[in-house]
């Protein structure tokens, strides 16, 4: 059924006589085949109703229209369509009531009058998508209005390239920057044409049309201009550690720009298989269980699965690339993260072997069995916020952690056992992320079931002063979960 077909807001209810093709007819002439295929594949079976918002002025498309499309002899329309998807067959009256419309809201997609790809700014809630069950990913929260009805959407921003002002590199940068500016007030909103200008001092020849694309170096430079401290990793440079480092940044809640030999997309989450048989090593990183990443590839659809190995995809929900085809990634670190993942990993592993602070010297429970470590970056503030609920295995540890002054960002390596992982932890090492790799004493705390050591001096901004505390009781406790949204 189509309610109000000739109005500014037609409402499509999918049924036998009104399939997706009926919606695409309403979206002409802007909708093209690729965009229609991707949207349908992503939302088929989920969306029951779609409100088509005609004459929507999209700030991102208007930005490229003003700076690029309007300068052409044959200009596309300056306005767009915005499609709002609902997982219930809402009536027009329901759309006026946020308390009815909000629970059914799946998100929106802007349809630009651009060729060959029409999909503009798109925010689709991953919690509504059944193929993402069990995945962990980042989302940002945005407030919108639909003819005055306030709605909220939690999603990772998606946009496809228009092949003129933006190609995959600019689109990936846009998705990354828009995630940060939507989620954190610290980062300002950057529109597509502005992204082309971020590299103008680091380019050979013209910056638009953007047909020549960007290099890792130029994308890193764009991140730097946007207020990040980007680090570039290549498989050739980091070898067997490459996948683990990529996983560690994703586990830290930092979306990264992941690239194959000629294409780049945003990796924003991961999925794991905890039934895998453990290897015989003394220590196993949690990345061992990783089965792949969740990506936003501008040529495809939001939230594709990137499997560990490249293979012919079974559906459009799976990427035609694989983790093994990644050649590089760029981690857009916050300004105050001075210690990189690879340095933290080496330093913590050495500390766990140390004669004074290591496992063998201080923990009968953990030194007598295989352990699993999970490393991630977080803010001292977020870590503290979760302490009370997690309990940290011992009330004294929780009390000390809450009291201890902590830096803006900390690296955490959680320690668990095959019996407890991934639901319970037995200890952790906290490391000051504002230190550099040569400050090998940059750790804040070392906690095992029977032992807690702290650098009280550094916490009070004086000379290092290491104190220890023997713990008499211990209960395994919840892992830290605030970095990624778990889709159940």
């Amino acid at each position: 059924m189509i309610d109000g077909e000739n109005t500014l807001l037609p409402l499509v209810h999918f049924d036998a006589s009104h399939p997706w093709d009926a919606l695409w007819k309403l979206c002409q002439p802007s909708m093209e085949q690729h965009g229609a295929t991707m949207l349908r594949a992503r939302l088929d079976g989920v969306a029951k109703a779609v409100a088509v918002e005609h004459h929507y002025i999209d700030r991102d498309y208007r930005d490229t229209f003003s700076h690029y499309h309007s300068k052409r002899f044959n200009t596309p329309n300056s306005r767009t369509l915005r499609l709002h998807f609902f997982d219930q067959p809402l009536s027009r009256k329901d759309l006026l009531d946020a308390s009815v419309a909000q629970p059914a809201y799946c998100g929106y997609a802007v349809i630009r009058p651009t060729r060959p790809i029409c999909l503009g700014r798109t925010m689709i809630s991953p919690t509504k998508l059944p193929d993402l069950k069990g995945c962990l990913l980042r989302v940002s929260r945005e407030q919108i209005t639909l003819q005055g009805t306030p709605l909220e959407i939690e999603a990772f921003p998606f946009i496809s390239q228009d092949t003129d002002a933006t190609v995959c590199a600019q689109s990936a940068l846009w998705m990354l920057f828009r995630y940060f500016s939507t989620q954190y007030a610290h980062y300002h909103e950057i529109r597509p044409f502005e992204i082309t200008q971020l590299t103008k001092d680091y380019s050979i020849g013209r910056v638009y049309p953007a047909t020549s694309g960007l290099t890792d170096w130029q994308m890193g430079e764009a991140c730097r201009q946007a207020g990040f401290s980007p680090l570039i990793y290549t498989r050739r440079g980091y070898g067997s550690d490459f996948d683990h480092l990529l996983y560690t940044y994703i586990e830290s809640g930092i979306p990264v720009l992941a690239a194959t030999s000629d294409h780049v997309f945003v990796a924003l989450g991961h999925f794991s298989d905890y039934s895998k048989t453990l290897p015989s090593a003394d220590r196993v990183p949690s990345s061992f269980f990783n089965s792949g990443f969740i990506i936003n590839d501008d040529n495809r659809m939001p939230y594709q699965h990137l499997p560990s190995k490249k293979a012919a995809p079974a559906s459009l929900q799976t990427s035609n690339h694989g983790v093994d085809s990644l050649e590089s990634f760029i981690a857009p670190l916050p300004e105050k993260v001075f210690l990189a993942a690879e340095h933290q990993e080496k330093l913590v592993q050495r500390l766990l072997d140390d004669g004074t602070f290591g496992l063998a010297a201080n923990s009968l429970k953990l030194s007598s069995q295989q352990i699993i470590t999970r490393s991630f970056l977080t803010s001292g503030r977020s870590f503290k916020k979760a302490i009370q609920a997690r309990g940290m295995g011992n009330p004294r540890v929780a009390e000390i952690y809450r009291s201890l002054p902590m830096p803006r960002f900390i690296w955490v390596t959680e320690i668990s056992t095959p019996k407890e992982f991934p639901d319970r932890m037995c200890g952790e090492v906290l490391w000051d992320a504002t230190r550099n790799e040569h400050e090998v004493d940059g750790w804040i705390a070392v906690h095992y079931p029977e032992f807690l050591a702290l650098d009280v001096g550094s916490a009070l901004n004086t000379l290092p002063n290491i104190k220890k505390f023997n713990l008499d009781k211990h209960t395994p406790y919840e892992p830290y979960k605030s970095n990624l949204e778990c889709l159940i």
Partner: protein
Amino acid sequence: MPDLKSTESEIELFPGSNDLLESVFEKFQDYERFREVFYESVREDLEELAKARRISEEEAMRRWYR
């Protein structure tokens, strides 16, 4: 003027914490020795990682994404 250093040394993380926490190193020199040994044990690893970063940054100008 108050003696800021001695005031700092009297700060407790929570009431009674200073009685519960014991020092790991008797003298600061012991701590510095520990730190030097620790650094020497990771020096080669840090040099390898510096090489990996150089390789990555050199490679960063070679691949174009469009």
